[in-house]
Structure formats: structure tokens, C-alpha cells
């Protein structure tokens, strides 16, 4: 475990290791709350394409960056690592935000569970995914080269739910266009950043 700061007046120097998809949201909160004691370092969001790589990538980042910090916090959900990320974090003495993935920690577990129970055939978008929809979804899934794969990827979904962190009419329009391209109806839920903010403020 990192040594605690000896000055109780100062907050602990905190290294935040985050998925790249959360960088903008963290910086928004850092500025709004004056969290000068927190520094973020990110791992590429594309690691989600191969979640088995996330745990060791996080471990490497912790070891590379932790010197000079009192503690390490992690903005990743389990993210498909099947508990292996939690194992690494326990071994490295770091703590992560609760939740299986960012959809859950944006919405909060009870609300995410209710939304999912309502219809598990839901494709979720966040601010980040809407912003990078063309790159991550269309090009990332090869739908630009093979549009005939749309049914393969999305044929089992009934709807798109856009989880909006920072309300933005431009992003909303993009989300509407994204849903249209997927051939699915759009539902919008404003989540804010309370989940992340509470975790970082109270961990």
C-alpha cells in the first residue's frame, strides 16, 4: 500500500487510472471540484476489444506511475475481465469504482438493473461512444467495408439507449443519427457524472 500523506489538511495525492473513454469526464470533474491532488492516466479504450488484456495493462500502468502518489484509484468496471481486474487491483493495492462497466456506474446499479431487466436486448451508448461512433462502431466493426454485417452484429438488439453524461444538443443529434444507422429506436437517459464524482470524492 502507498504511504499516506502525513498532512491531514491535504487530500491524498491520487493517481487515477482510467479507461481513455472517461478522460474527458474526469477532467470536467477535476476542474469543477478543484481536484488538484488528482492526476489521471489513461489506457486506450480499444482494450475493450480484447478485455483479457486489461488486467495486466492496468497492473503495468500502476507500477509505472505509482511513485509519488499516496493512493491509486481505478476508473474501470469489471469490463469483461471476469474478475481478473479485481484480482490485479487487490494485489496492487488499488481500488476501483463499483460496477460491471461504465454503463452501470454512470446510471447506478439499481437503475441499470431495472433498465436491463426491462429489455436486455439494449445497445448502450455513452457520450464517448456517440462522439466516436463512426470510428469505434462503424469502422471498428467493419460496417464501412461490410455493411451486410449489420444484421449479424445488431440483429438481436431491440433498442439503443444513449446514456448522456454532459447534456449536449450536438451529441444528442449524433446519437439519433447513430440509432438510425443501426436501424433501432433511441431512448435517452441523462446520467450526469454523479457515480464517478461520488467515487472519487469519497474513496
Amino acid at each position, binding site marked *: 500500500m502507498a504511504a499516506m500523506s502525513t498532512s491531514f489538511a491535504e487530500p491524498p495525492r491520487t493517481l487515477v487510472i482510467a479507461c481513455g473513454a472517461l478522460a474527458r469526464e474526469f477532467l470536467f470533474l477535476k476542474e469543477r471540484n478543484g481536484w488538484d491532488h488528482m492526476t489521471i492516466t489513461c489506457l486506450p479504450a480499444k482494450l475493450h476489444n480484447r*478485455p*483479457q488484456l486489461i488486467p495486466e495493462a492496468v497492473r503495468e500502468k500502476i507500477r509505472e506511475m505509482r511513485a509519488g502518489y499516496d493512493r491509486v484509484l481505478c476508473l474501470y468496471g*469489471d*469490463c*469483461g*475481465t*471476469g*474478475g*481478473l481486474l479485481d484480482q490485479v487491483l487487490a494485489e496492487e493495492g488499488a481500488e476501483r469504482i463499483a460496477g*460491471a*462497466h461504465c454503463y452501470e456506474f454512470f446510471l447506478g446499479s439499481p437503475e441499470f438493473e431495472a433498465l*436491463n431487466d426491462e429489455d*436486455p*436486448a439494449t445497445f448502450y451508448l455513452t457520450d464517448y461512444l456517440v462522439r466516436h461512433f463512426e470510428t469505434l462502431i462503424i469502422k471498428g*466493426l*467493419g*460496417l464501412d*467495408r*461490410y455493411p*451486410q*454485417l449489420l444484421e*449479424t*452484429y445488431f440483429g*438481436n*438488439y431491440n433498442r439503443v439507449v444513449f446514456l448522456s453524461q454532459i447534456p449536449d444538443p450536438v451529441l444528442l443529434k449524433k446519437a439519433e443519427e447513430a440509432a438510425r444507422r443501426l436501424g433501432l429506436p433511441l431512448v435517452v437517459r441523462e446520467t450526469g457524472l454523479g457515480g464517478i464524482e461520488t467515487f472519487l470524492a469519497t474513496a
Partner: protein
Amino acid sequence: MSNELDLNSLSDEELIEQMHDDLYDGLKDEIEEGVRILLQRGWQPYDVLTKSLVAGMKIVGEDFRDGILFVPEVLMSANAMKAGMAILRPLLAETGAPKIGKMIIGTVKGDIHDIGKNLVTMMMEGAGFEVIDIGINNPVENYLAAIEEHQPDIVGMSALLTTTMPYMKVVIDAMKEKGIRNDYIVLVGGAPLNEAFAESIGADAYCRDAAVAVETAKAFMARRQGSALAQRVA
């Protein structure tokens, strides 16, 4: 690409090699044509399946595992193979192609992801298994009903989400409760799974991809049916 190539002009060996390339490139029409040409030349459907389609997908699977091919390309190859298999399927039954065993497979309750499951289904069929696909979002009752109706050798479960994979234990526990767990081989797969998880829930094996699923299934069937089968499938 074989757009300008007359497949009919190729020898059997050349055609097989071309079909491997066409499968790799996800060229559905060319694969269908190649299958038809080989059948017209008197090839046994089982040999067309194994030498052109299964062998071709093996190359695709290896390059995917090595990070050379990615999901979109694998799916296009799979679509091409499926198209070829659609032609062969009725003929395989007619010509008494060897059947190694029977599997039921489905994605568990709460999970609608089926790309991996569909790839496993296709590769298991290609390997000589009869596969009954019970689809997505399956509660335990669906698995039990399928087991009762089809009496498979293998029960396959798939999940893509950390939140749905625990449901596999619900199914296995239900099988134990009914006293039927040991009558079936239980194979599990999906991105968030691993061997430790499979062991913890009482599955027989975790299969990290479709190719491993086929080899694992064959190995378990061989163990089940003794050395005679092991010689036949080798």
C-alpha cells in the same frame, strides 16, 4: 480474388487452394460456386466440407488468434462457409457422413450476444456434430427442455457479459438437482470466461474459441466412446 478466374478451369487441388483463399477473403458466391463444382466432379459432400471449408476456416481461425485477421473478416469468412454448408447439409445426411455426436447450444438468460455461439455452431457442424441451436436469452427451463427433447451428448453455454455468465451455474446446478449432470458433457465459452470460472461452476471445460470448442468436444467424445471413436476422429 477470383472474380475473373474461371474456377472450372482449375484442377481439384488448385480449386481447393483457391477456395481456401476465397474463404479467407469472405467471398460467399465463389465458395458456393466452388462447392458446386466439386460436387459435380463427383466429390463426396463430406470431403468437400472437410477439405475446402473446414480446412479453410482453420486458416482463418489461426490468423484471427494471431491478430492478423479481425472480427469483421472472420464473420465474412464464416458467412461464406455457412453458404457452402447450406448446399452440403442435405447431401451430408443423404450420403451418411460420419456423425461424432450431438450438441445443444445457447446463450444464457439475459444475454443476447450470439456471434461466438454461431461460430461454434458452424465449426461443430463442420466437424461432424449435429448441433441444435436454442438461440439467445435462455432460462434454465429452455436448456432442460432441449436436453430432454434432443438427448445430446454435449450441452454448450455461451455468455458475453460478466453479469450473465453466473447464470451458467444455475443451469449446471439444475442439472445436478435432476441427477442428470454426469450424463452430459458441459462446455462453456464467452469473452469474460476463463478456466477457473468453468471449474468453479462445475462445467467440464472452458473453450476460448470455436476451434478449441471443436477439439475439446472431440476429445470428450473420444473419452466417452472409447478408442474406436478416437481412431475414427483422428
